[in-house]
């Protein structure tokens, strides 16, 4: 008797538990805010007003620029206080959608934005762009942050993010090692670069410092530089921006990949490059273990400090003499949550960063990169002969040739980790051919673009 009672209780409890579990089972998702059709129309130029405001910011840790800017901003606008949360970029990438949906910051460092726009998590900045006159800046500055309806195609459409500055990539070189092989000025053609690499190898100097370990395939830097050296930048951008019909598997890109493969086979990269991460690459390059390094100007300030006078920078030389220069160049993107409380003040801050002379000084001196804003705006003085000076000059050269490209790793959310990195690691290990690499990346790209 008592046993039967217990059995009945068991059953009842089980049913309650299962029922409670099942009750939560509608289709998941759908709690995202509605996408705005157009930008919020802004009638008067937004400001931070005079009443006390606390701007909530979510920024990337390890880079002093946003904090320095916020301090200076509060100095000029004492009613604005900051509540800043910091995380590593990888953490921000993973948290971005949830943070923007649950607890939207006024200002946030952004990863790849397509998905965030698709879910309606970012404020459409068109209204602000009009009110502040961002539309009259060089169009290439804002191109990467424009998205078509639903976040599908990038490169045109409404503005969803803004940069604190924009960075530039190219080739750093160790001047002391360069002198040893008789390289007195940067190479101006790909053939000259090849010759320098071969000379370094013969002289027992590691020709290239690069990382390609773990989940970050750093050989994507020299690969994309080679692509831009062999062909025009525009089709590469089309591919990154997911324009219909775009492909990475083109004849000129194949030549570029084959060239990279030759560098690998010639032993121009470290033997353990597949186990080298970014930090290791930096410490080895600073330690003099590498003549060239394919990297970006976010390191200019650091290198000026660590090896003063010993580092030079040049843009990847074109295959033919006098060919067009191109470089990966991307804004340090910040966005405003679609449900942010102080959106106007955040937009005012972004405009201030690009236009205020002191803010522009900070963007260069602390950030090491070119500030955003009008072409004729105030430019800070930079000491001659520093890396920072040459990267800023390179920025001007690239925009003259209209050669700014986004990074091939940013084409889709998964393309870097899923395709470029493992494929480039396989290329290093001799387990993939240049042709196979491009075919494979293109087919992954197609399934990701079509499938999402």
């Amino acid at each position, binding site marked *: *008797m*008592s046993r039967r*009672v*217990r059995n009945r*209780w068991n059953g009842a*409890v089980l049913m309650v*538990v299962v029922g*409670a*579990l*099942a009750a*939560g*089972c509608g*289709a*998941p*998702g*759908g*709690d*995202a805010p509605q996408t705005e059709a157009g930008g919020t129309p802004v009638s008067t130029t937004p400001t931070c007003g005079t009443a006390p405001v606390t701007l909530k910011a979510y920024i990337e840790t390890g880079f002093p620029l946003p904090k320095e800017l916020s301090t200076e901003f509060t100095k000029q606008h004492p009613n604005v206080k900051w509540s800043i949360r910091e995380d590593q970029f990888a953490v921000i*990438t*993973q948290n971005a*959608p*949830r943070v923007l*949906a649950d607890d939207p910051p006024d200002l946030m460092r952004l990863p790849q934005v397509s*998905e965030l726009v*698709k*879910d309606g*998590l970012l404020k459409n900045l068109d209204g602000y762009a009009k009110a502040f006159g961002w539309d009259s800046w060089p169009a290439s500055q804002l191109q990467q942050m424009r998205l078509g309806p639903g976040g599908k195609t990038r490169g045109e459409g409404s503005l969803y993010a803004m940069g604190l500055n924009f960075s530039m990539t190219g080739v750093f070189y160790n001047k002391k090692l360069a002198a040893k092989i008789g390289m007195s000025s940067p190479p101006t053609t790909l053939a000259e670069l090849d010759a320098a690499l071969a000379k370094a190898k013969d002289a027992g100097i590691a020709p290239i410092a690069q990382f*390609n*370990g*773990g*989940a970050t395939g750093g050989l994507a830097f020299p690969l994309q530089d080679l692509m831009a050296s062999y062909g025009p930048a525009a089709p590469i951008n089309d591919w990154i921006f997911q324009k219909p019909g775009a492909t990475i598997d083109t004849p000129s890109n194949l030549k570029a990949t084959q060239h990279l493969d030759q560098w690998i086979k010639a032993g121009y990269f*470290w*033997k*353990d*490059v*597949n*186990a*080298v991460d970014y930090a290791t690459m930096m410490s080895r390059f600073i330690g003099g273990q590498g003549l060239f390094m394919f990297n970006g100007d976010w390191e200019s300030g650091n290198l000026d400090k660590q090896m003063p006078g010993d580092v030079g920078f040049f843009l990847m030389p074109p295959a033919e003499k006098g060919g067009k220069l191109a470089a990966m160049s991307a804004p340090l993107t910040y966005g405003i949550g679609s449900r942010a409380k102080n959106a106007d003040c955040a937009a005012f801050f972004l405009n201030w960063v690009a236009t205020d002379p002191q803010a522009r000084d900070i963007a260069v001196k602390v950030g090491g990169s070119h500030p955003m804003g009008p072409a004729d705006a105030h430019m800070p003085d930079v000491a001659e002969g520093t890396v920072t000076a040459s990267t800023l000059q390179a920025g001007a050269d690239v925009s003259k040739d209209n050669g700014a490209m986004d990074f091939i790793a940013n084409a889709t*959310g*998964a393309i870097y*980790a*899923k395709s470029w*990195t*493992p*494929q480039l*690691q*396989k290329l*290093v*290990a001799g*387990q993939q051919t240049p042709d196979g690499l491009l075919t494979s990346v293109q087919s992954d790209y197609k399934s990701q673009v079509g499938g*999402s």
Partner: protein
Amino acid sequence: MKKRSPAPAAGLRTPSWVGWLFVAPALAVYAVFVLRPIVLTFQYSLYRWDGIGPSTWAGLDNYVKVFTDPDLFDSILNAVKLIVFFSAIPVLLGLAIASTIRRIATSRLALVARTVLFLPQVIPLVAAGIAWSWLLSSNGLVNQVFSHLGLGGVTRAWLGDFSTALPAVGVIGAWVLLGLCTILLLAGLSKIDPAVYEAARMDGAGPLREFFSITVPSLRQEIGVCVTVTVIAALASFDIVFIATQGGPGNSTMVPGLEIYYLAFSERQVGMASALAVVLMVLVLACALPVQWLTKDRSS
């Protein structure tokens, strides 16, 4: 049916639901933090969902992809290969070490050996992973030792080489789990009546005979626990791989735990990630339950 005894205690007899009252808090926690996530994971695995926006019904598509996408399926194969390092080596080596330590149990050396072997269990896995990635780097201690021995030819970036990355990760796992197995087996050994060994020795049994005829059979249950714990550690491995290789080079050390994390948080394919998680759970159960059954103590 038995007639209920009209005992005087009948008035004090607690109704059976009171028992449930005591269990309720634990049951609630278990339901909310264990059962609910499992059910939700299963539910998510039937949808295509980015974690935020609206989801679409996918049926069993995600499961089909787990078994047909070579990247995903290879990650499961890698986990199975890791069982050799995470499970076979620690258990076999642990048995040998435990029975050796037992023979010198009273000496100070035994205490030192126990402490040293158990140390990896105390160190956080992340710290262990970082330390090992230094040891195994191209100019790390392992390669220095090889070079000094005149074996410069075998030196390489162990974690960055396609053929050695997975075994290298396995070695880290073996190092971590060896201590756990040794201590568990030592505890089991201390329960064995010394008289049994004495009797065996009187009958002329050598150390090897003792080991196979007394030690191993007596440790049946402990071995069962060791195998279960280490097999689960191999199949559900995450921390060591995440710190040491992040799945590279070229996915050669990708394991399901890591793949689930990448799918859910980097690629935002919550449905796929959930499907792989469900498959992993079934796989773990399919490996752990037979081990439990095989090593069950049937005498009791």
